[in-house]
């Protein structure tokens, strides 16, 4: 892959890719600041726009949007105490107290520098790990892929930020059943189509994602009404930005530890940014000589979640690109986009499209740097975007979703899928069924079934249990399920970090 580093750099800077990177970053920042809208929504809405673009421009636009979300989300969390999406929540624990002390610029500077460094380090790790991962994945055959998918789904089922474990498992089963609609990959038997021709090729993932994330959010916004934030916009002029940036180097130990946490947790399917940032914050509190300062405006409390959140995006590409198993929800949507573009993540990707992988890495770094530059230049002005009224935004999201779904192939069936999944997504949100548990099985269901059937055909049942990697992955699945149901201990550990160390402080802030 390394021999492609320079040629890919040339392609990355070739017009119009930089323009689309900029467009992606700006759209991503908009969605990052607006509460309720985040990575999945922006990626789902951008996907229909990419299908007539050249793959390079499409990839850099999508990655640009994705990389802009964490930092712009944190901007609203730090300056307005308005975490628009889950991973930004931890940034508000100490970011907002700093803002109240008149040090908003200091916190934003720390956040921006953490984001840039984390993206750079994460991308270097990604570049180093991918070729090694390629060698590992070559040892994989059908049983290993099946067990890998099963392990991923088990993780997704038990690591749920929303709802109960039980509902998480039900949602995984539902996602798999939806993935099974259409022709069976081995026998060609059409299943669960009920005579509907549209369903013969299965559910198209892109309109399903548009519905789950964009339409459902539109419904939610219109029902809630009012403005995205009722609070006053933050002070537009930020002071102490440079000192904040330097503070990352003064707290480099916290930064590196959080970066490692983000890198590790980013690779585990289903973990996502919310848990990663909370764990990184908890680690920063525990390792600090002055834990009592956290929640009062300690800059390490901003650096830790930012470092973890931005590094998890880079490492999240490892399972996504190597195995085709999305690590978190944004990756699931991105996987759908790559499929639309004719790029199939999986073991062969590094041999067939190494330049596309490098494009992802370059765009990730460049996107973070551009976002940080814009955030630091425009400061609190951006937070005024959060004053948009929901009834104004929701119909535009609806129209864009419906037109986008229709534009994919001009099929009314795609629009019906978007609408159905939109309502389903809204109900799932309200009744505590985690959406990620539906999306990841949708993405990996095909891989899982093909691997399962091919194993049975080629090796029989013993194929799953006689190969060492497959057996090891099976043990991992059993361990995941055993520990998740043993006593809910892990839940208490994470929640206690979220609530007792930080959440309490956060709730105090809410009360203020």
């Amino acid at each position: 892959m390394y021999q492609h580093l320079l040629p890919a750099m040339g392609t990355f800077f070739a017009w119009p890719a930089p323009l689309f990177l900029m467009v992606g970053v700006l759209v991503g920042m908009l969605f990052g600041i607006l509460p309720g809208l985040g990575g999945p929504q922006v990626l789902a809405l951008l996907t229909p726009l990419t299908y007539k673009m050249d793959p390079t421009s499409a990839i850099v636009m999508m990655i640009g949007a994705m990389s802009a979300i964490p930092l712009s989300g944190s901007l609203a969390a730090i300056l307005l105490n308005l975490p628009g999406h889950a991973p930004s929540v931890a940034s508000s624990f100490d970011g907002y107290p700093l803002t109240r002390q008149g040090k908003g610029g200091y916190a934003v500077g720390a956040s921006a520098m953490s984001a840039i460094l984390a993206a750079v380090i994460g991308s270097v790790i990604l570049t180093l790990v991918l070729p090694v991962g390629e060698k590992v994945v070559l040892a994989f055959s059908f049983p290993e892929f099946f067990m890998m998918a099963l392990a991923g789904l088990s993780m997704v089922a038990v690591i749920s930020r929303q709802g109960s474990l039980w509902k998480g498992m039900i949602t995984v089963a539902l996602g798999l059943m939806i993935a099974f609609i259409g022709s069976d990959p081995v026998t060609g038997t059409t299943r669960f189509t009920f005579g509907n021709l549209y369903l013969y090729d299965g559910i198209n993932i892109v309109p399903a994602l548009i519905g789950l994330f964009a339409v459902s959010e539109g419904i939610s916004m219109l029902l809630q009404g009012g403005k995205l934030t009722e609070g006053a916009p933050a002070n537009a002029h930020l002071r102490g930005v440079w000192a904040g940036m330097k503070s990352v180097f003064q707290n480099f130990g916290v930064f590196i530890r959080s970066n490692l946490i983000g890198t590790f947790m980013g690779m585990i399917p289903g973990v996502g940014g919310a848990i990663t940032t909370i764990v990184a914050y908890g680690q920063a509190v525990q390792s600090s000589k002055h834990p009592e300062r956290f929640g009062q405006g300690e800059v390490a409390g901003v650096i830790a979640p930012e470092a973890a959140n931005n590094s998890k995006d880079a490492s999240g590409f490892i399972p996504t690109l190597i195995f085709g198993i999305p690590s978190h929800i944004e990756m699931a949507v991105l996987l759908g986009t790559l499929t639309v573009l004719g790029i199939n993540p999986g073991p062969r990707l590094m041999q067939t499209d190494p330049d596309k992988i490098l494009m992802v890495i370059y765009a990730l770094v460049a996107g973070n740097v551009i976002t940080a530059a814009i955030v630091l230049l425009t400061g609190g002005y951006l937070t005024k975007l959060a004053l948009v009224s929901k009834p104004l935004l929701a119909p535009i999201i609806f129209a864009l979703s419906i037109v986008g779904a229709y534009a994919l192939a001009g099929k009314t069936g795609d629009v019906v899928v978007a609408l159905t999944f939109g309502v389903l997504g809204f109900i799932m949100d309200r009744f505590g069924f985690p959406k990620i548990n539906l999306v990841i099985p949708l993405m990996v269901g095909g891989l899982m079934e093909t691997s399962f059937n091919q194993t049975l055909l080629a090796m029989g049942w013993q194929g799953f249990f006689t190969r060492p990697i497959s057996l090891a992955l099976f043990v991992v699945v059993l361990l995941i399920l055993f520990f998740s149901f043993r006593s809910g201990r892990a839940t208490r550990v994470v929640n206690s970090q979220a609530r007792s160390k930080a959440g309490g402080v956060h709730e105090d802030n809410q009360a203020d």
Partner: protein
Amino acid sequence: MKTTKPIDVIVFDGVLLILFAGLAIVGTQYQPMARELPLPISIIGAVLVFILLLTDLFRPVNRALPFVYRKGIGTGGRTANERQEHAGETVEGQQDGLAAREWLRILRLVCWLAMLVIAMQWIGYLAASGCFVFLVTWLEGRLKWWHSLISALGTVCFFYVIFNLFLSVTF
């Protein structure tokens, strides 16, 4: 009978149960290799939903099976939107369901969206999107008519630039 959860939560459980059970029954008709995964997964799904339904229906079952509502690892802080959405929760994780008024509103929204789809076929996507944004922001969002008009015109211009000029999409 007083149920553990609101009626709409139970109805949703019931729909899921019928769905999984239906898929399991249909799955039995396929040839063995085509049903190897779908059949057991639909049966497992049906069993899981059945137990969930029982816990949502009967308080003694709910108390006897605490693991059904055990939280997933990682349930932590909430975003601004979630704080608003979950303001009506009674016990942690136990939603109150939706009021009848909200269900009607969702139904109305779905009708609006269905009309948008139909209108797209008849009058083209640009005019349909413009009318949709104008009417929904004005009637559902209760914005001033000229605010709605501006947002509708803005949307039409944006769509024209993106889909017609930039993407050359033919609808």
